[in-house]
């Protein structure tokens, strides 16, 4: 190793320091205390009293304090984590970076899954607060609510309200990964939740219905936060065609009833790209064209919402049949597709006796066509697909 002599040190050291203020998008301030440059677009998060930049940070994979520090420098002030993310390490990393800062300079949301007892719920909440090194979170979500019943479970609803009364959270909410229409309606009817976090992206075929429901919720004062904005991040199963992230974010934010989004940010490059939308949400023609193209390519992945099942006259296991279709055409794994088709045991022409399909798909899949297509595998000997 060459000796690190003083002359070289001075040359390298001073050049490095000079570089601090120059990087165009990741401009540093003298500390990591966050500021809000005037031209960042903010929206009111329902009636929570929180004014929130349109881009926030999803911390599901967070393992680097550097990204949080960089996000703060760029004007991102809201951070979304969960008790279960990385078995608590996401909350710990956030706590390490945020706890030295003035408490009113950022907002934090965490999530806890429904528990059998209030006691267990508060045990987990207290652990989360300890990891985050704060006395309260700004939003506490009931994590991954997928039905009206779960949402209205009185034990958990009472626990959430109690958490708010005790000052452990300023606001309560629910996060929804599927059955958005049903659960969001339940949240509207219930009138107890301040915020809803839900999947919202350009690929959703039930987008119009969802947008209307979101508008209703927002008009009732519920804060709406969008997640899974990138719709999986790739257009194709081979993961060769990435989604245009800026376009995807801008698309969601065209709806003013979406108050912010929480893309997962893995590195400083992604942060730079996502953060550029903080100040500019206008969707240009190129970006619109990309998204229109993306929609046409999204015909492989069933939502597994099961909304089609009850309306099928034969009660076919449609989500599983769609999974077999995805194995065949998405993964190109005919063996797996055939195994599943054989296991399901619906024969090689399950739709033949129906002149017209009685069921419908929120993603506008031609179910009869896909089921007829994939069921042909029943006629193919196993040796042929191995």
């Amino acid at each position: 190793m060459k000796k690190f002599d003083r002359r070289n040190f001075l040359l390298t050291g001073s050049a490095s320091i000079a570089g601090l203020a120059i990087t165009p998008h990741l401009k540093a301030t003298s500390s990591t205390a966050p500021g809000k440059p005037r031209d960042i677009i903010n929206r009111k998060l329902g009636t929570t009293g929180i004014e929130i930049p349109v881009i926030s940070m999803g911390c599901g994979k967070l393992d680097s304090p550097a990204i949080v520090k960089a996000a703060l420098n760029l004007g991102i002030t809201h951070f979304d984590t969960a008790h279960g993310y990385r078995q608590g390490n996401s909350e710990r990393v956030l706590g390490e970076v945020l706890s030295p800062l003035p408490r009113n300079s950022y907002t934090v949301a965490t999530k806890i899954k429904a528990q059998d007892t209030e006691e267990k719920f508060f045990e987990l909440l207290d652990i989360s607060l300890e990891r985050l090194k704060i006395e309260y979170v700004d939003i506490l979500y009931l994590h991954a609510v997928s039905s009206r019943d779960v949402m209205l479970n009185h034990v958990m609803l009472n626990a959430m309200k109690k958490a708010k009364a005790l000052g452990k959270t300023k606001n309560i909410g629910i996060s929804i990964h599927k059955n958005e229409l049903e659960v969001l309606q339940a949240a509207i009817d219930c009138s107890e939740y301040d915020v809803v976090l839900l999947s919202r992206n350009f690929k959703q075929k039930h987008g119009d219905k969802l947008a209307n429901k979101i508008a209703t919720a927002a008009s009732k004062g519920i804060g709406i936060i969008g997640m899974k904005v990138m719709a999986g991040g790739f257009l194709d199963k081979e993961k060769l065609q990435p989604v245009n992230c800026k376009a995807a974010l801008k698309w969601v934010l065209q709806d003013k009833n979406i108050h912010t989004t929480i893309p997962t940010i893995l590195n400083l490059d992604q942060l730079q790209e996502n953060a550029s939308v903080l100040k500019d949400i206008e969707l240009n023609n190129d970006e619109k064209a990309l998204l229109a193209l993306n929609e046409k390519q999204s015909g492989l992945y069933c939502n597994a919402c099961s909304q089609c099942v009850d309306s099928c006259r034969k009660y076919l296991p449609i989500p599983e049949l769609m999974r077999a279709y995805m194995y065949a055409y998405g993964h190109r794994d005919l063996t797996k597709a055939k195994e599943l088709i054989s296991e399901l045991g619906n024969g090689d022409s399950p739709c033949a006796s129906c002149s017209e399909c009685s069921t419908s798909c929120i993603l506008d899949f031609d179910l009869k066509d896909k089921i007829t297509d994939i069921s042909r595998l029943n006629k193919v000997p196993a040796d042929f697909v191995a």
Partner: protein
Amino acid sequence: MTALFRKCIVFISGVLLLVPNAHTQHFPKIETFKKGNIATYTPEELWEYINGAAVYYIDFAFKKLKVIEYRNGPDNYIKAEIYEHSSPIDAFGIYAYERSGKAKYLEIGSQGYLSHSSLNFYKNTCYVKVHSNQKDSLTLLAIREIGYGIAKRIPELSSPKPFDAFPAENRIEYSEKYFASNYLGHSFLFKAREISYTGNKANYQLFRIKNANTKQSLQNLGKYLSFVKSGDSAAEDYLFKLNDMFNGTLFIIAKGPYLYGSIGIEDSFEAESLLQTLIEQSK
């Protein structure tokens, strides 16, 4: 088909029925909980089992998951999960990624701990998690029994431990980490091993990054120099001092396919001495 041939077929089939399923041999039988069936998940199916967390495992070259449920009555279960990865360092990586801050470490596998009612450890290419919905003493005992039983069935690895080359003095216990990607938040830094140390004034870290070859090593060093606007060109065998605005003060040197570095050390002589040790012990 001759009668003798038919008898052979019947005999072989009978033997196969009696031989335990290879999968179940991974999981021990215990007295207090009854073993269920094994479910297997591939990378494409992992999402069905652990939802969004699947991406973390896939980042660490996940190959296959075997899961079994043990039961003691309708309300008490223990789940044992064996995540198989491509290499021991990947298994370690996901283990450390989820390693709990407050844990009781045990002598199990290559390293393991008990946290609440969950026993996690790694050994060879496997990351194992044994956890329950109950915390009573009978269940905790059963968790340990299952965990140790699984550990015994995973073969030992004869290669050096992943962090043996790092200086031993002043190490912070259980601070070893492996980052498959995005080390320090930078997309060009990956496959990084890191340990934290207690220093005179402040804690610091040492790291070693393995690139594909010398060319890639210098390319990635160049990207880092460019990020901090150093103005210098990447070169091998030269100790660079960087002020990374989000990670603090770093010293970094390229040696063949490796990048060696320190974070949080201010003094160049101290950094040089420690990194020299790491380089020598890595040979």
